[in-house]
C-alpha cells in the first residue's frame, strides 16, 4: 500500500520533471519559432524579404523647423519629391539669417518612419557641417539622397525633417 503510493508519486514527479525540461527547451525553441511565426503572419514588415524590386515610386516629403528663439528661417524649396528605387533625389532648401549679426547654425535631420534612414541614404547634405551665415545672409543649400534599390512595398512615403539649431560653441 505504502509502496504503491511511493511508486505513483515517483511516476508523477518524473513526468513533471520531463515537462520542466521540455519547457526549458521551449524557451530556446522560441528563438527560431518567433522569427518563423512573424514571417508566416506577415508581422515583421521591416524585414528585407518583403522588399519588392518592382515597387513603384516613393514619395519623399521635406519638413523644416527652427529652434525657438533662433532668428533664422529654413524653407524647403522642393517640399515633395518622387523617386524611383535606385535613383538619386536632390532637394533644395533656403536658409535665411534674419538678424544683424553673423549666426552659426546646424541642421539636425530626422526620418519618419525611422527605417527610411536606411533606404534613403544621404550622399551630400548641408547638415553634415555647421554653417556660418553672415548678417542677413540668404543662402540656398542642398541635400542629395540615394534611394535604395529595393523598397518595401508598404513604404509609400517618407518624411525627412530638418530642425535648425544654434551651433554649440566648441
Amino acid at each position: 500500500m505504502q509502496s504503491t503510493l511511493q511508486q505513483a508519486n515517483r511516476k508523477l514527479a518524473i513526468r513533471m520533471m520531463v515537462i520542466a525540461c521540455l519547457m526549458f527547451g521551449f524557451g530556446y525553441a522560441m528563438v527560431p519559432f518567433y522569427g518563423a511565426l512573424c514571417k508566416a503572419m506577415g508581422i515583421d514588415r521591416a524585414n528585407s524579404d518583403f522588399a519588392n524590386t518592382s515597387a513603384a515610386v516613393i514619395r519623399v516629403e521635406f519638413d523644416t523647423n527652427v529652434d525657438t528663439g533662433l532668428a533664422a528661417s529654413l524653407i524647403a524649396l522642393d517640399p515633395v519629391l518622387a523617386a524611383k528605387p535606385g535613383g538619386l533625389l536632390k532637394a533644395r532648401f533656403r536658409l535665411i539669417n534674419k538678424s544683424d549679426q553673423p549666426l552659426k547654425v546646424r541642421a539636425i535631420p530626422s526620418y519618419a518612419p525611422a527605417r527610411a534612414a536606411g533606404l534613403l541614404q544621404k550622399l551630400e547634405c548641408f547638415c553634415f557641417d555647421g554653417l556660418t551665415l553672415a548678417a542677413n545672409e540668404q543662402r540656398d543649400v542642398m541635400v542629395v539622397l540615394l534611394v535604395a534599390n529595393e523598397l518595401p512595398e508598404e513604404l509609400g512615403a517618407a518624411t525627412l525633417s530638418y530642425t535648425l539649431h544654434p551651433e554649440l560653441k566648441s
Partner: protein
Amino acid sequence: MTTAHDALHAPAHDHAHEEHHVSFVQRWFYATNHKDIGTLYLWFAFSMFITGGIMALCIRAELFQPGLQFWQPDFFNQLTTLHGVIMVFGAIMPAFTGLANWMLPLMIGAPDMAFARMNNWSFWLLPPAAALLLISFFVPGGAAAGGWTLYPPLSIQAGMGMDLAIFAIHLLGLSSIMGSINIVTTVLNMRAPGMTMLKMPLFGWTMLITAYLLIAVAPVLAGAVTMLLTDRHFDTHFFKAIGGGDPVLFQHIFWFFGHPEVYIMALPAFGIVSQIIPTFARKPLFGYVSMVYATCSIAILSFMVWGHHMFAVGMPASTQLFFMFLTMLIAVPTGVKVFNWIATMWQGSMTFETPMLFSIGFVCLFTIGGFSGLILAIAPVDTQMQDTYYVVAHFHYVLVAGALFTLFAATYYWLPKWTGNMYHEGRGQFHFWWSMVWFNVTFFPMHFLGLAGMPRRIPDYALQFTDFNAIASIGAFCFGLGQIFFLFNVIHTIRGGVGKAPAKPWEGANTLEWEVPSPAPHHTWETPPSLEMVEKGLKAQGLLGDHHE
C-alpha cells in the same frame, strides 16, 4: 471518529519524546518534516521581505525630494532591481510555498509532503541564492541594475553583478520547480479518502494550479537567463543586435514567463481568502465549482497575454488588439471570484477578526489594482502609461495588497495552529488598520504621478512631482514601521500570546487542519482522517449533497 483521534495523538506523543534527542542542527538543517520546512520557508521569506523592504525605503528616501540626495543613479538602479527581484523571488513566492508546506498536508489529510528529502533541498537552495544577490552589491560594478525584467542590451553590458543575479535566478528557479513537483504530487496522490478533487479546500486547488504554472514557466525564465549568460560570455547572439540577435526576443521570452509569474503570486492569495472569508462569514464559500473553473481559466489565459507588456516595442495593430482583448478577458474570471467572495459574505454572520480584516482589505484593494490593470490593458492608453508610476501603483496594489495582505491574513489565521497560542487581537487589528492606511498613502498618489507623466526607475524628477512623492515616501516609512510591529506580534504569540489556543479557535472553520490539536503535533494524519471526519467537514463547507442554504 474516536479511533481517528487516538491514532492521531499516539504518534504525536511518541515524537514529543523523540524531539528531546534531536539537536537544533538536526531538526532544522536536515529538516524533512513538512511543518519544520514550512516554518523555515516562512522565516526566510520574512527576512527577505525586510531586506527588500529596506531597499524600498532607500528608494523612497531618495525620492522624497527632487535632486540627488543619497545615492548615485547607478546605485539607485541596483536598489530598484534588487528590491523587485528579492520581493518577488525571495519574499512572496517562498512565503506561499512555506504556507503550502505547512498547511496542505494538514488540510487534505496527508501525513507529509510526497518527497520529504527533496523538500529539504528545495528550501536550502534559497539561502545561497539570497546570499549571491546580496554579495553582488559588493562586486566590481555592483549589483544587477537593469530592472527586475533584465532587458538587454543593459543586462548584456552590465558587470559581474548580473552573472551573480543570473546564477541566483537559476537556483531560485530550481527550488521553485522542486517545490512545485512536491505540491502537485501531494495534492494529486495523497488526499484523504472521501476527499475528491472537487471537494478539496480551495487553497489546495490554487496551490495545485500555481505549481503547474511554475513547472511550465520557471524553466522558460531559466532558458532566457541562460541565453543572456551565453550572450555575455560565450559569444552567442540571441539578443545581441550586433551579431544579428534581437533584443525584443528577450522580452517575448521573459514575459512568457513574467505574466504567468504575476498569477503565481496572485492565485495562492485567492486560495487563502477563499478559506478565510467563509470561516468568518460562517457560511460555505459561494460558488465553489465556479471558483475552481475561474482559477483554471485565469491560469490558461495568463499564457496568452504576455504581449501586453510590450505594446511599446512596435507591434502591428492587429497583434496589439489580440493582446488587449485577451487581457481584458481575464477580468471575467477574476470578477467571478470577487463576486463569489462578496456573495459569501452576503447575509453571513460576519465577525471582523484580523484575518478577516486583511481578507476584506485584500478584496477591496485588489479590485482597485485589477481595475488599473484593465486600464493598462488598453493598448493606446498603455503607450502613454508604459514605464510611468501608474504602473508602479498598479502592480503594488496587486502585489502588496494582494499577495502580502493575504500572507498577513494567513499568518493570523493559522498562527494559533502553528504556535498553540492566540495572538493579541487588538494588536492584530492595529497592524491591519495601520498597514491599510499607510499602504494607500504610499501607493495611491503614485497613480497621479504616473498620470502626470513621472517615469519609473529614476532617482531624480521634475519639480512638479515633489508633493506627491513626499507623501508617498512618508507613507512608505510608516508602512515599514508597522511591519516591525507585526514581527513583535508574532514573537509575542510564539512566546505564549494571550493564552493557549483550542484546536479550533475559529467558530466557522471546517477544514481538516482544525481537527488536530493546537499546536499541530510534529506528526499528523499518519493514519488518514476517517471518512466520517472528512464528510463532516465537507458537509459544513457545503460540499456534500444535503447541505442547503
